[in-house]
């Protein structure tokens, strides 16, 4: 087993991530072998070392299996409507910019019904960290095809196989203006944790795509074995290419998976751009909200 997996201490009495979870809501609803829980573990470990004040971290989810993440996090957490986590998070961030606002949702939620919000938040460089779990399927509703279902894969609404082109999400995010773009799988726990930590530290629209197994609906229907088989597949078929051209990272049905940090750049966030613009234009006549004023003082 690679050394990178030996991070978890085994002698401590309770799981150190418990304080980050609403333990009174356990057990969770996810299936055995589902990859979502692993990603939550990485998220918590990223939070633990992020230095963030947890009272100032909010998680916003949409609807779906991943949409349930918000409900399990012992943080200010919002479980919104299908596809609309990003605009809710946008309002929350603009009202209370001292918060670190994390959007945690699935591929169908964020890129099909919520696709319009995704591209516009990236364009605006809205200060959000978007963690997208890509299991290539709609899980909660029973395994229907998503914009991420690869050509050739079978879903309940593509019983004869999918022939629709898929989204290459890192490319989409980069083209729309995201300042941080990374992709990992649920197998890459160390890299993923580091990446989420970097995304949390980043100002602006940061995006982490995580491939995660859905053994119940995706793997079973496509005869790919159980969750463990899918993790082994990730291990054997992923290629780490930091800085890869996002155009080249399209996912094929059971093909090679390019993972890594693809984009890490700077540009003014929406709030910074707004502030600078109004300050330049109106000088002292500009009255920012109390929260925005406090934040920009703190940053000076």
């Amino acid at each position, binding site marked *: 087993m690679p050394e990178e997996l030996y991070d978890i201490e085994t002698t401590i009495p309770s799981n150190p991530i418990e304080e980050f979870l609403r333990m009174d809501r356990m057990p969770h609803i996810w299936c055995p072998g589902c990859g979502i829980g692993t990603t939550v573990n990485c998220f918590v470990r990223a939070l633990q070392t992020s230095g963030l004040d947890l009272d100032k971290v909010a998680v916003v989810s949409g609807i779906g299996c991943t949409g349930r993440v918000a*409900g399990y996090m012992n943080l200010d957490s919002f479980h919104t*409507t299908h596809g609309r986590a990003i605009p809710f998070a946008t309002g929350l961030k603009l009202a209370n910019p001292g918060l670190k606002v994390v959007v945690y949702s699935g591929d169908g939620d964020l890129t099909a019904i919520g696709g319009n919000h995704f591209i516009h938040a990236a364009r605006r460089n809205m200060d959000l960290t978007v963690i997208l779990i890509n299991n290539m399927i709609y899980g909660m509703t029973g395994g229907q095809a998503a914009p991420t279902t690869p050509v050739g894969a079978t879903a309940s609404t593509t019983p004869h196989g999918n022939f629709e082109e898929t989204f290459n999400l890192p490319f989409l995010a980069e083209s729309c203006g995201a300042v941080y773009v990374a992709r990992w799988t649920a197998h890459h726990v160390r890299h993923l944790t580091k990446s989420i930590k970097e995304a949390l530290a980043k100002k602006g629209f940061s995006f982490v795509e995580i491939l995660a197994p859905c053994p119940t609906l995706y793997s079973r229907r496509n005869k790919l074995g159980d969750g463990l088989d899918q993790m082994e597949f990730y291990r054997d078929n992923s290629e780490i290419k930091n800085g890869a051209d996002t155009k080249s990272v399209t996912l094929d049905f059971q093909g090679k998976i390019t993972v890594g940090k693809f984009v890490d750049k700077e540009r003014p966030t929406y709030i910074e751009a707004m502030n600078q613009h109004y300050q330049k234009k109106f000088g002292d006549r500009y009255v920012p909200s*109390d929260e925005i004023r406090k934040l920009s003082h703190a940053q000076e």
Partner: protein
Amino acid sequence: MHADPIGVLTGAHFIDGDHACSEGAIAAGCRFVAGYPITPSTEVVERIAERFPFVGGVFIQMEDEIASSIAIQGAVWGGKKAMTVTSGPGFSLMMEHIGLAAMTETPCVFVDVQRAGPSTGLPTMPAQGDMMQARWGSHGDYQIIAIVPNSPQECFDLTVHAFNLSERYRVPVMMMMDECVGHMIERVVIPSADKIEVHNRKVYDGPKESYRAFETGRDLIPSMVKAGDGYRIHVTGLTHDEKGYPDMSVSAQGKLVQRLMDKIRIHADDIVMYKEEDVEGADVVVVSFGITSRTAIPAIEQARAKGLKVGHLRLVVVWPFPEKRIRELAGKVKSIVVPELNMGQIVYEVERCAAGKCNVVSVPHAGGTVHQPKDILAAIEKSLRGT
């Protein structure tokens, strides 16, 4: 509480209803607006965009009405008072989030400057066709408050009131304007800040351990906190318990939905608002709202000149509906006439409350312009035939 003077343009103005609505929102303490352009409501957000940099507000033009109607809810949980503004087609897109606001008890204001529908209809012309949609448009059972102004002055006054009601009852409040009232230019007097009453949501500041986000006292209205205060709240559109946690049981559903209904019903007497004129001793009462209340006036005057005893009841708050008062009147008058710029919506409520005790006559109009007073007059006369 009184209004923050920074946002209040005290004095007499000559402005349209849309702009008066913007000023009402600012005076009420609204500091977050998300919107998407649509005729005939756009002037509301245009004025907000103009004014907000000087009053500590954030305006954002979102990518669509769906986004606008939930961005405001994020802002409310971030501690702001917030509103979105639209017209028919956009209002249709916002329906899911009216349900979300009702379910999560997120106080916010939706302004709908009504135009003629269905679909794209007559984008620049008036109607009152969204009245039932305001009440029932989102799926499931819930209650909202809907207010209908009939002048630019009321667009100011009642927008302040809409925010106050939404904060008090933690419910989405609809400002149901129409193209005429929105674009009509009249004198609007904005009082000094200390004369403008402003209400804020009940805030919980007790110990964190014992906070239950949706627990209520006898008023059935929970106290609110905002994200970042350390309470680690959970808010969901799923059926939830008093802690805010999802609870997929029939009993939790029954309890929650009942309370969402009751919290408005038990306060209905405080919320209901209507204006009456010469209703005592009348044979006919015209029940109207919004712009139609103004086109009804010449008809009522002409009927009186003909010797008929006609009263006028103008609905200011349409939802909750003034059931008690309409029931009472139905027992006293011979008929009730209901002109509205739709094919007959509020008339159903009037008929329900009248319960056969008097004639109820609808004066429908598909919208695009206002009623001809002569049509309302004819309905008044017809309503007395055979009584």
